[in-house]
């Protein structure tokens, strides 16, 4: 039975950030120094920005970042009346990681929940070191997280965590995909019998298939319902799709998952049946096909039918 998750999540990429855990070590007060017509140093703009980015995004604390940087902090940053240069740039340093944790925490809520705050933060720190954002949007920051988890030695239970992350990634992708009017429910059944074998079913863009070694659909639902997440081993096949701007998860049988996968890959219905036969050593039964197409059409998974 499909499990619905009408999307309500916030994926805003505002840049306001809070400063917490900033180590404000004893301050040497100094008078603020307003700009003067002559610069106090000659660092050019490009070098300054490279320097500041290296400090702000450094995986250690701001003091370690400053030690490793190519330019001394005092060469670039002025003190304020209350903060030393290192403390001032430290504000940006602390906000950077908070922003990454917050962004990935929104996209990977269930994963963050099962890992706990501390482990999730460690994971994010390691992840953004290897996969820093290269996009103007934070919405795609987490695209490589399942792959990263699969190879990460930081975590126990990596297979379950990777599967759960893969499901959550599929949900964020489906959330953002282009909207397409689905075919009416009876469109597939109205194909002329002689044209069925050569017909190609075009899926809606907002559709992803996820196969997992654990029942991550149940694990995700448990998180949604604020129940304890209990990893349960068992092959699971899920179609994640969007309908009326809500994201849904539909569990599938292994056979249905394979057949739908062939269609999504662009195979005609006829060649999908042939490939199914190769895979399972049998043809799909007529009532199987009927049920699959009925359920998939009702869920709005198809955008068009192409008939040669």
């Amino acid at each position, binding site marked *: 039975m499909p499990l619905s998750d009408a999307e309500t999540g916030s994926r*805003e990429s505002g840049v306001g950030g809070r400063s917490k855990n900033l180590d404000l070590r004893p301050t040497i007060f100094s008078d603020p120094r307003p700009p003067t017509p002559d610069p106090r140093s000659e660092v050019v703009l490009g070098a300054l920005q490279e320097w500041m980015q290296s400090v702000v995004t450094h995986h250690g604390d701001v003091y370690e970042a400053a030690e490793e940087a190519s330019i001394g902090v005092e060469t670039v940053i002025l003190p304020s009346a209350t903060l030393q240069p290192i403390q001032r740039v430290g504000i940006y340093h602390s906000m950077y990681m908070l922003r990454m944790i917050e962004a990935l925490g929104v996209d990977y809520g269930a994963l963050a929940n099962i890992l706990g705050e501390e482990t999730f933060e460690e994971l994010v720190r390691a992840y953004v070191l290897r996969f820093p954002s290269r996009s103007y949007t934070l919405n795609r920051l987490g695209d490589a997280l399942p792959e990263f988890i699969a190879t990460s030695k930081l975590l126990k239970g990596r297979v379950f965590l990777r599967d759960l992350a893969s499901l959550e990634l599929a949900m964020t992708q489906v959330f953002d995909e282009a909207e397409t009017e689905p075919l009416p429910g009876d469109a597939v059944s109205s194909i002329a019998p002689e044209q069925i074998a050569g017909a190609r079913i075009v899926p809606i863009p907002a559709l992803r298939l996820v196969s997992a070694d654990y029942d991550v659909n149940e694990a995700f639902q448990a998180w949604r319902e604020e129940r304890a997440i209990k990893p349960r081993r068992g092959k699971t096949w899920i179609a994640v799709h969007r309908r009326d701007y809500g994201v849904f998860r539909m569990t599938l049988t292994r056979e249905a998952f394979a057949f739908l996968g062939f269609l999504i890959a662009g195979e005609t219905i006829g060649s999908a049946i042939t490939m199914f036969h190769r895979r399972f050593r049998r043809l799909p039964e007529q009532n199987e096909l009927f049920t699959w197409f009925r359920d998939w059409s009702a869920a709005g998974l198809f955008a068009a039918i192409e008939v040669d």
Partner: protein
Amino acid sequence: MNRFNFPDLGIGVGLRTVHFKHILGSQPDVDWFEALSENYMDTGGRPRYVLEKVAERYPIVLHGVSLSIGGTDPLDFDYLRKLKALARSVNARWISDHLCWTGVSGRNVHDLLPMPYNAESLRHTAERVKIVSDFLETPLVVENPSSYVEFTTSTMTEWDFLAELAAESDCGLLLDVNNIYVSSFNHSFDPNVYVDAIPADRVVQVHLAGHQNHGTHIIDTHNDFVIDEVWSLYGRACARIGDVSTLMEWDADIPDFETVHAEARKAEAFRGSRESGVGGRSDGLDQREPTTDNRQPDEAEVAYAAV
């Protein structure tokens, strides 16, 4: 009226996900909405749907956080193409972003990182603003950021830098009076001097917001009501500039829509307060050729909508 003839839209509120249901369901009596560009550029899902529905009823302004106008990486024309298409689809009245950079070497830190204020930065940024305005076919509107550091390479104040940038690149200004207050606290300058120095005819919009005062510094968190000192700055700005499109930003710990809107409406008390004869600068900067765009507001909007 600013020199671009961008209209005074009244008092608006930032469009935020948590308010989508309320806005679509109740259609509140709000003058206009500002949408964060990047939240709608790459999605065909519910956020884009909601924005387009809101745009059917309310004027929309697009406000970006990733243009990186001061950055030393090349401008991202893929980003600009998407921004322009989004602006067209929602008939954005204008497009703004921040005087900042957001990353270099292909990376994005997703923060509004500060610029050093000197001749090199000015030349660099003005050139990029001109390119962006040409590409978007509308004057870019540049916002003063909050900042937590000052650079040893700066040779001018932020307000002088902004005034020169605006003159050099013919851009509009989004005056964030909360940001002025935050930076004035962090850098120990008089915020009134800042407000008084801004070329009034360049100001297209004003931002209001709350912040967090940590004693030694203030962080621009957009998570609270506007403090009295910021309202006072807003009043000073209105007296200089005249009535100008004003927007309340609330991005964290966001309360219900009516609370945010009620906070924004407090701006009414300060509008209509322009002092006669104080809109111009005593140094004559406001006496330059009055405008580069003599179109009437409606014509300007129509022209932009047709981009």
